[in-house]
């Protein structure tokens, strides 16, 4: 039995430990926001936060997140209550086909958590693991800067749907 924290809630899944986390989340737990793109950790569509780090979950054995905290796009925010990064994405109409954007938003969230005011080259470094075939890179870069400034001005949070482990509060700060 696999046990970890998913979007703030303790979960137990009956799946072999070598199953990639992506498929445990999509097939067993039925959360579909994280996407399958390459199965080799090359494109970033499957990115989730594992203890705050943007992680390629299509090659990550689920057993390796035992007792860790996993956050998917659903845990970052939702259409009723979006995070600062998601709001910036909506405002700039970043998405085209949209398939890679969950992963892009997860990586952008991890970046801004660690570096609240990244430079262009820091954005390039942090985001170059996430491929976008529609070519939304210029808009992604602009949206990350907008989100950074919103958070710094107290106009949004990086995670709004996230629940701290062992807390039942409605919203983590």
């Amino acid at each position: 039995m696999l046990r970890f924290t998913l979007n703030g809630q303790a979960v137990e899944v009956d799946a072999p430990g070598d199953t990639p986390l992506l498929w445990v989340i999509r097939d067993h737990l039925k959360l579909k926001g994280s996407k399958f793109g390459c199965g080799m950790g090359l494109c970033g569509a499957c990115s989730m936060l594992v203890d705050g780090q943007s992680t390629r979950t299509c090659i990550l054995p689920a057993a390796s997140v035992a007792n860790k905290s996993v956050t998917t796009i659903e845990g970052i925010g939702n259409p009723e209550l979006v995070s600062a990064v998601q709001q910036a994405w909506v405002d700039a109409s970043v998405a085209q086909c949209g398939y890679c954007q969950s992963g892009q938003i997860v990586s952008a969230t991890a970046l801004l958590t660690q570096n609240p005011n990244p430079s262009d080259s820091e954005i390039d470094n942090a985001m170059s693991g996430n491929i976008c075939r529609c070519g939304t890179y210029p808009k992604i870069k602009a949206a990350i800067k907008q989100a950074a400034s919103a958070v710094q001005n107290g106009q949004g949070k990086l995670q709004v749907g996230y629940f701290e482990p062992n807390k039942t509060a409605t919203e983590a700060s």
Partner: protein
Amino acid sequence: MSTTVDQSRRRFLKQSTLAGGGLVVGIPLVGLSNAAHASEAQALAPNAILQVTPTNEVHFYLPRSEMGQGVHTGLSTLIAEELDVSPANISVHLSGANDEFANPEFGMQITGGSTSIKGHFLPLRQLAANARLVIRQAAAKQLKQPLDAIQTQDGKIFIHGKAFPYGEFVDIATALDFPEDAALKPASEFKYIGKYNQRLDAMAKSTGTAEFGLDVDFEGLHKAALKQPPVYGGSVKSFDDSSAKNMPGVKAIVAIHNGVAVVAEHYYQAKNALAKVEVQWQLPETLGAFSTHSLDANNGMGLFENALKEEGDNGHDEGDAKAIQQANKVISAQYWAPYLAHATMEPMNCTVKIENGKVDVWVGSQSPGMAKNIAALFADVSKDDVTVHSTYLGGGFGRRSASDFVAQATAIAKASNLPVQLVWSREDDTQHDLYRPAALAKFDIGLNKDGTITDWHVKRVGPNIMPYMIDETVDAMAPGFMPNAMVDWLSKRGYGLFDGWVVDPSSIEGLFEDYDSPNKQVSHVTIDPGLPMGFWRSVGHSYSGFFKESMMDEVAVALKQDAVEYRLKHLKQNPRLANVLKQAASQAGWGKPLASGHFHGVATHMSFGSFVAQVAEVSIESNDIKVHKVTCVIDCGTAVNPNVVKAQMEGGIIYGLTAALHGEITLKDGAVEQSNFHDYPMLRMNESPEFEVVIINSNESPAGVGEPGLPPIAAAVANAVYAASGKRLRSLPLKLA
């Protein structure tokens, strides 16, 4: 849907069972676009449907596939403009397959060829204008006021300063005769067209809640993984599933027309078990012997090179073919573009449930009508028993206009007797595409004494797309569907394929049209080893833009003339292209000093009714080509949503840069050698240039934007590389070492 339609061709569905009720109107887009091909039955049934409910909700049933190009937003903007409702207040629903959703330019339900806005611009506006007028008429009646006094604003009727929501009048409106020709707004009064910049799908696509084909799930759905023959056209000779069939979760292992599938509870179980299935293949001989790297004169590049010696079929003949013999000077060059895969971010997939003779298909498709027919064929049911549920497309770029994966999913569901979602791996997706054709072209450009082009001769060698598309179409459509819709589809962009099968125009498009020359000769030699070909973003223009614009640069360089000035001299008959070129040069500071080590290259190209010019700023560091900035000017006529147009330019350029700098599919013994993003790399953010996009202000009819951004970019970069290094790169991808 139960409908009562007035016999005077009014598209007014008075007793609709659409949830919410109210005013429900639709139009038959086929009939409007091409009355000759619309049967009476088609004319009487609605397709694009607009609903205004008594509770003031506005619903729009969208007849086109949304694959990122923004059509969802663009078409809704047309409705919003004439109905006078904010686009943000329109609920958009993706429509499934329906013959009545046929694309006005294709006569079949296909999204491609950069046609959606172009083909729907007037019909959808007219529908919404008619709806607004009937609501005003209803309000005039109920409020006992003259029609002239009834104004509208953002979904409300205004009279003497009082506001009433549209919904209050829709029941009365339904009882009125539906108008047919309400006046359309002049461009000067547009509130949303050309001004509205939000995407309506932005929230769903920023929160992981947009449903793509792979996200479809329901109780009892199984997942399938498929082993396909390494060479296209192969089939299963025999297979051994003894080590796979007892693996966890495995429910069935079945052979289908082109592979062996494992059906399991979960995808990862299916994938693991599939690895243990041993398959013996029957492989096709011709393609099985083809290797792109071969040095043999009858294989690989040798085949293409040899074919250049053939005379070829005539593709375009203008002026005097022999005049080139009198030319003062002839400049010749030949160029190469390799096969390319599409690499949509979402691998191909399709979900099929067959129950009691009814087939449900969930798929993100650029041609759901074709998907429906293919599913009917492979499930062996009438197409009336197939329902296609459209999802968002995780990228299309032409790949999802084919239905090979729909055929497979249906065959697996039928053979296993289970509802299945077929999931292709990235490796499947890279190795089983319908590829962008490889192309070799040779130009001979004749010049007179003052350097003016008098003869434009070009020969293209390579495979054609149409035979592969026709193959699928004929299988799925013939015979009943063929007489009008298929002929229409084949004749898109003026294809005259039934008039002798000479040259597929998509093979030569863009090679000769743009520049003035009294004599133009285009010939074509078909070389097709048998790898399947498909529509790839901008189709023939994807290579012809590189070929033609590199050639033009070579001529200008040979004559020691400025690349912009020289082009302008030959654009007297193409003023819109001349204009974007001038604007791009001025915007980019053409001819002015750049940062040390930086060089400009320019290219301009017309495709899909739009005119685009680009200037690329490039530097070279230890043989690496670095693109710093791209200035792009587009004239697409009326820009319905400028933000989407800009995004499509950036996206088209980035897609084109991936091809220009990285893209190459090679074959060994007929099998594709690349498999995933490590050996078929995509442009990433660290390689993405800065952009400056300018949209020409125009009231001309809207033209395509999804594709025209791509064709010039490879040449703009190659021309800058020449300026920087003196090395003329005539093959894609561009490599200096």
